[in-house]
């Protein structure tokens, strides 16, 4: 027998369930308990970068809207730098931008929204410039292990076409499932996105 390696095994995932709001967004569950709450607003008045709204809906395999889903986003700041010590790239840190937020879908409209800034491009480990994107993590009743996906931006056509990860998506027609559409409403920039958990237009999910 060789020496044992003795690694531990990751704890198994379990669904977040229908009442995930209690723990993560108690105001949505219907009560007020914490002095400080996390939210879907990532910006302060001092945050650097272009203000954008991300606005999405999540659909199941029958095409029905999920009204009990929870999304978290994690993104770089306007200079392409993550607010974390492991990011040692050269872009400037923005002390007014944590880069993370969470939102539950509205119980009526199913809309998920984030108020954030458009991230800058990051450089991958091969030194290639990536198209800007936002990382998304999705949990809900019926989702046994959190789903990872990304949002790229429709107005970054050239960068998207050259992006090393988008180019891994096969067949290429599935790449569009990762792209949010830029629009404007009342003078504000809104990127709309759709996540299909299943079906002919199933969103690309990543094993990271």
């Amino acid at each position, binding site marked *: 027998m060789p020496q044992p390696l*003795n*690694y*531990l*095994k*990751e*704890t*198994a*995932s*379990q*669904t977040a*369930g*229908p*009442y995930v709001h*209690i*723990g*993560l967004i*108690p105001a949505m*569950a*219907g*009560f007020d*308990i*914490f*002095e*400080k709450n996390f939210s879907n607003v990532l910006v302060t008045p001092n945050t650097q970068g272009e203000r954008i709204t991300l606005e999405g809906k999540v659909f*199941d*395999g*029958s095409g*029905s809207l999920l009204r009990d889903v929870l999304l*978290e986003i*994690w993104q770089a700041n306007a200079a392409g730098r*993550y*607010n*974390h*010590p*492991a*990011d*040692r*790239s050269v872009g400037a840190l923005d002390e007014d931008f*944590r880069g993370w937020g969470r939102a539950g879908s509205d119980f009526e409209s199913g809309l998920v929204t984030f108020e954030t800034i458009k991230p800058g491009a990051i450089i*991958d*480990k091969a*030194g290639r410039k*990536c198209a800007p*994107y936002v990382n998304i*993590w999705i*949990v*809900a009743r*019926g989702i*046994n*292990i*959190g*789903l*990872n996906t990304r949002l790229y931006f429709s107005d970054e056509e050239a960068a998207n076409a050259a992006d090393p*990860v988008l180019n891994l998506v096969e067949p290429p027609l*599935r790449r569009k499932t990762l792209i949010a559409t830029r629009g404007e409403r009342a003078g504000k920039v809104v990127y709309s996105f759709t996540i299909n958990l*299943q079906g002919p237009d199933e969103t*690309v*999910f990543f*094993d*990271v």
Partner: protein
Amino acid sequence: MNAQAPALRDPRLNSPEPFTPRDGGFFQRDRTIHPPAYAPGYKSSVLRSPRQALLSIENSVSEITGPVFGHNDLGPLDNDLIRNYAKDGDPVGERIIVHGRVLDETGRGVPNTLVEFWQANAGGRYRHRKDTYLAPIDPNFGGCGRALTDDTGYYYFRTVKPGPYPWRNFVNSWRPAHIHFSVFGSGFAQRLITQMYFEGDPLIPVCPILTTIPDKDALDCLVAPLDLNASTPFDSLAYRFDIVLRGQRSTYFENRPEGN
């Protein structure tokens, strides 16, 4: 000074940082111990499970980084579910302490990471606008809390033991008593939600959600043992629950500057 000028050398030896075989990525997730997305015994998963293969990508800086939280994000009662929603007395139920460590797969503690938890009250009822179970709401119990792990990955909180409750899956499906956990780790690829169960609960082997886990050992790791040593005499029983997040090939201090 005579600088030595070696002829043929590994170019990394001239790097200002020492060579390391580590790139900062997380160990590949072993999906055989996790519940599959499609698990028909848990009916809600049928329409909510992706059917295409996941696209595997190497960890980039996006995955090895993640949100950083601090004590400023929390309030003083956040880890005390007996007191953090008390209005005119303590909540009803068995008083318990839940404690343990957040580790990674190498066995190292994960320090300063956010752990969030939520649960039903002692009667099995959630304080949630969508829960209509006939057991009563407890006016003194909110049912959620959060804590930051210390330098060694240790966390603890105080609560009442949640009750089991029925739910719509099969006609007579009951959830074992459980507490939901949400954990971050240091990188977004470690993000995990799971549930803790209680040693000896007879509903564990028949739970359609728990039995989505295909691996017996992985399932057992969700069951917290009674920990009499950590119990407070004449006050609270204790349960021990360690959580393991994915291991990482380095700490970030060991990364080459362009290495991630």
